[in-house]
């Protein structure tokens, strides 16, 4: 079996980002061989066809090319549910400060953010990652895989660097917060 064809078949049937490790196991190849194959496949799709291969949310996935967005949108009729400024602000704060409590976000924004946080949890962009070991044991929030997917990020390190003292870009380390 041709490696590229095998990769294409697996990525076609997957409905979520697929990791190199999973592809290597399925095809019986080394991770290096799969990574090389993915590069070739990505370049091949770049030149022709309506699909492209992208690295997203820690894995690889097929998606339609932007030039076909209009025709696909006409077919699927997506409902416009883009995030407003307030939700985006809360999301950005959590992405950089995670794990954070509502109180932390409130302190940064200067307004109550519990509504926004709950809305982002319902959209599966944020989730509870534990509880802070302080009085009241408030809930700690962090970003999800869905967050990476919806913003076309591979991991949190893709976020732009901010010149703010004490900001952490790494994913939440649950051991640091006593969970």
């Amino acid at each position, binding site marked *: 079996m041709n490696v590229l064809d095998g990769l294409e078949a697996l990525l076609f049937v997957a*409905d979520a980002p697929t990791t190199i490790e999973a592809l290597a196991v399925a095809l019986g190849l080394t991770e290096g061989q799969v990574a090389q194959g993915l590069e070739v496949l990505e370049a091949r799709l770049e030149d022709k066809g309506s699909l492209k291969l992208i690295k997203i949310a820690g894995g690889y996935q097929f998606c339609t090319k932007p030039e076909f967005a209009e025709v696909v949108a006409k077919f699927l009729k997506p409902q416009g549910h883009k995030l407003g400024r307030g939700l985006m*602000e809360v999301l950005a704060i959590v992405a950089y400060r995670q794990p954070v409590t509502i109180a932390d976000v409130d302190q940064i*924004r*200067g307004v109550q953010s519990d509504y926004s946080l709950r809305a982002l949890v319902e959209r599966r962009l944020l989730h509870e990652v534990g509880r802070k070991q302080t009085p009241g044991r408030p809930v700690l929030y962090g970003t999800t895989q869905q967050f990476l997917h919806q913003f076309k990020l591979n991991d949190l390190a893709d976020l732009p660097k901010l010149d703010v003292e004490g900001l952490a870009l790494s994913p939440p380390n649950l051991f640091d917060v006593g969970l």
Partner: protein
Amino acid sequence: MAPRRELAETNPITALGVIAPPPIHIDSPKFEGSLATLFRCVKDHKVQLLDVPLAPVCEAYFAYLINATLDDLDEAAAALTVLAYLLERKAWALLPSLEPEPETEEPMELPASSAHEYGVAIEALKMWQEERSQNFFRSPDSGPEIYELPYSLGDVKPDDLARAFSRLLAKATLHPEANTAKARRSISQQMLVVLKAINTTWRSLEDLIDQPFTREDAVYFFLALLELVRLGQVGIRMEEESVQFARAKGVTK
């Protein structure tokens, strides 16, 4: 939770700035302390109010009103204010959050520059969100915008469905004949009922539903049928002036 007013300490904290509420003690799985402490913790977002049941707190307040000599009306008023605040906050927290973000969520006064420092990130996220909306994936729930694969209603128009439903409602009995206290079915339960009633033979709505039926039965039946059509489980066609339904798999032409 059992309100244990007798165990409450006299809390010197003046939760409302001037007058402290009475020492009503709250003991719940997620919070233990006085009413004043709960007020301060909620105000400072240190406690998730959704985890703290308020009914026992109200009961404790009523017990306080009945038993106390009420020499200090200010103290009782402070407790009432605290309770009102907590109830309002909890009611707000329980509101469905699919509504558009309220105006009050917008920063009225941004502190220092901390929120502004996220401006670059917010702009980047907005740009990526726009870029991402130009890519479509196999999974409809991968977002950011909700969509579903289109399904065909053939030559049936929404007006035809509305007329068929209207005819069905006209034949419904006005009052339930059987037990009015029967348990209300969910749409998913009703879908199972409809699937049992439907087979490969094309039939109209009136032929499919069990007779006699109430208007409520008709509404449930129709909604379940529509959902099954959407899921591709039930086929739909026009036969003369009548809308007919049959199982989608192996339907007779």
